[in-house]
């Protein structure tokens, strides 16, 4: 039965093995050099006393390769879901081969459990291996970089969870839609939606963030939003807090009772905010000195009643968050897999 499962997944397994092999070769060729660079930088900077600058310089090493390998790890689960998960049931229904497969001496529940089990575990292994190679390759650069959270979803174990969810989504979409191409499209959309929901909504809330209270420290202001859709009310921009390797999830101005600063209040404290800027041209232009002074005065007035609350996840929570996210995605994948089993049992 497991052998039969393998036979139908050979093409995808070969493709995955090829990609991983290529990445492994790239990593093997360029990786040791990065390790040597890192060691040299660490050894050299201590005596010269410029470690921060040396690390910052090292972090930009091989920038485009680092980015593309990161992109590969991010999109690999989506590809697994689309090309491995979605056709698993859909192609059988589309080509009519389910009438061959489901009339062998194996119940269709078991057929799907083994087929999806074999292909699913292979896809988890593929995503895990790819992440392992890329994580190892990039580790000197990541260590030199400002925060490991910047590459949270391209490293370590979370890509395994992403692959599991994408695969299960693909299988379920294929079983429900019964056509391969639409199932692939739905898989992609649903997977991206799930990833975004977890990244922006679940991940910051899994562990309640630590809060750093500090005096108002205004660096500038902005009107927020993207250019075509500016938000109406201007907001203050803050000096980044000195929290090395932490993931700052939000910075708010609150009063002593923890109440936020309403926009009307901000306008009262800082009249003229958001007005009289350069107002022409694209990109950043240097604000006039008067605007800077006004901003400092406004910050000082605010500081009498308000303070900054910086919510953040410390570097020590990187691994707990990795495990939590892996668990969330694996659990969701199991639920979807169960739904797919139920669905296949009732296909007729």
């Amino acid at each position, binding site marked *: 039965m497991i052998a039969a499962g393998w*036979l139908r997944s050979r093409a995808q397994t070969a493709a995955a093995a090829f990609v991983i092999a290529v990445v492994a070769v790239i990593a093997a060729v360029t990786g040791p050099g990065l390790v040597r660079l890192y060691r040299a930088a660490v050894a050299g900077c201590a005596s010269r006393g410029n470690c921060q600058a040396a690390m910052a310089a090292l972090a930009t090493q091989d920038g485009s390769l680092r980015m593309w390998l990161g992109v590969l790890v991010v999109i690999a689960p989506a590809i697994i879901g689309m090309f491995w998960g979605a056709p698993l049931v859909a192609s059988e229904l589309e*080509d009519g081969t*389910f*009438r061959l497969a*489901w*009339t*062998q001496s*194996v*119940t269709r529940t078991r057929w799907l459990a083994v087929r999806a089990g074999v292909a699913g575990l292979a896809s988890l292994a593929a995503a895990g291996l790819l992440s392992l190679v890329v994580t190892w390759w990039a580790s000197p650069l990541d260590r030199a970089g400002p925060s490991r959270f910047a590459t949270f979803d391209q490293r370590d174990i979370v890509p395994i969870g992403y692959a599991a969810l994408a695969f299960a989504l693909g299988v379920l979409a294929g079983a429900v839609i019964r056509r391969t191409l639409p199932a692939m499209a739905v898989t992609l959309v649903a997977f991206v939606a799930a990833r975004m929901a977890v990244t922006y909504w679940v991940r910051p809330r899994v562990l309640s963030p630590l809060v750093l209270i500090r005096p108002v420290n205004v660096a500038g202001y902005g009107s927020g939003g993207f250019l075509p859709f500016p938000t109406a009310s201007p907001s203050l921009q803050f000096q980044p807090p000195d929290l090395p390797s932490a993931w700052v999830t939000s910075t708010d101005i609150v009063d002593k009772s923890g109440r936020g600063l309403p926009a009307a209040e901000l306008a009262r404290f800082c009249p003229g905010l958001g007005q009289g800027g350069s107002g022409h041209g694209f990109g950043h232009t240097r604000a006039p000195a008067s605007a800077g002074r006004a901003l400092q005065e406004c910050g000082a007035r605010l500081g009498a009643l308000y303070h900054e609350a910086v919510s953040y996840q410390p570097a020590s929570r990187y691994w707990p968050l990795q495990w939590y996210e892996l668990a969330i995605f694996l659990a969701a994948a199991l639920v979807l897999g169960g739904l797919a089993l139920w669905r296949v049992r009732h296909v*007729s």
Partner: protein
Amino acid sequence: MSELALGAGRPAAGASPPVALAASGLGKRYRRRWALSDCTLTIPAGRVVGLVGPNGAGKTTLLHLAVGLLAPTSGTISVFGTRPAAGPQQLRRVGFVAQDAPVYRSLPVAAHLRMAAALNPGWDGELASRRITRLGLDPRARAGRLSGGQRAQLALTLAIAKRPDLLILDEPVAGLDPLARAEFLESVHELAAERATTVVLSSHLVADLERICDYLILLVASRVRLAGQIGALLASHHQLSGPSADPARPIPHSEVIAAAHSGARTTLLVRADDPVLEPGWTRYPVRLDDLVVAYMSQAAGARAAGGRATGAAGSGMPR
């Protein structure tokens, strides 16, 4: 009508033969459309059964219900006394070749055999490879490259080497050229002769079935219109030719299935064990395809005329 069908298949001795498949009030609905409704039939074990009927009669739906690919909307169906596809033991006993003989186009022939070997505990690998060799199939050839006849033979090999007690073939020769058709039917015939395998073969071409079947079931609009051993069916039906002066004149102890008038003569197809002929009438043996067509037209006529005609057709049944 089903009463007639069941009666026709029953041997004179009275002891019921073992039953391979039994359906009662069986129905399957797709959204709003009933593909099969209130179908009641019995298929005896140990026979090569031809299932004929016009397109849309519900043959494929019935066969899919029999192998458990479909679940009934109403009624019951059992194969060897058990619900189809109830478990691995039940699946093991039934071999199936679906319409158009689906196989994995990108997989080589040999991989199909390996896969089937892994999926079927009763797999007869020797039989399978012997058949593949004899058919001249290249084990390394991808199934998508095979001709229609070769693909059908591959699918049949997969179903046969499973060593089923019941082999179900849905329109197996529909897309094949005459030579491939003959070879395929020859393979089925050999299997049925070698073992006590029950074979059910659907087709809308009677000539194909006549070659290898010894039992016939005619399904029209979900209803069994005719069922029985082919020899017995042919013996109990007669083609009569006589003067057309009085076409309504009854032939004693017989049921008129079809009547045709041309000029001064009338041709009748009647069901009777031993028709007593009036002077001027001649009896000819009946051909199976004529018989099937006659029952099909009778059913179509009955359907067109509504319930009244159905009742009339039923009244002439011999008891």
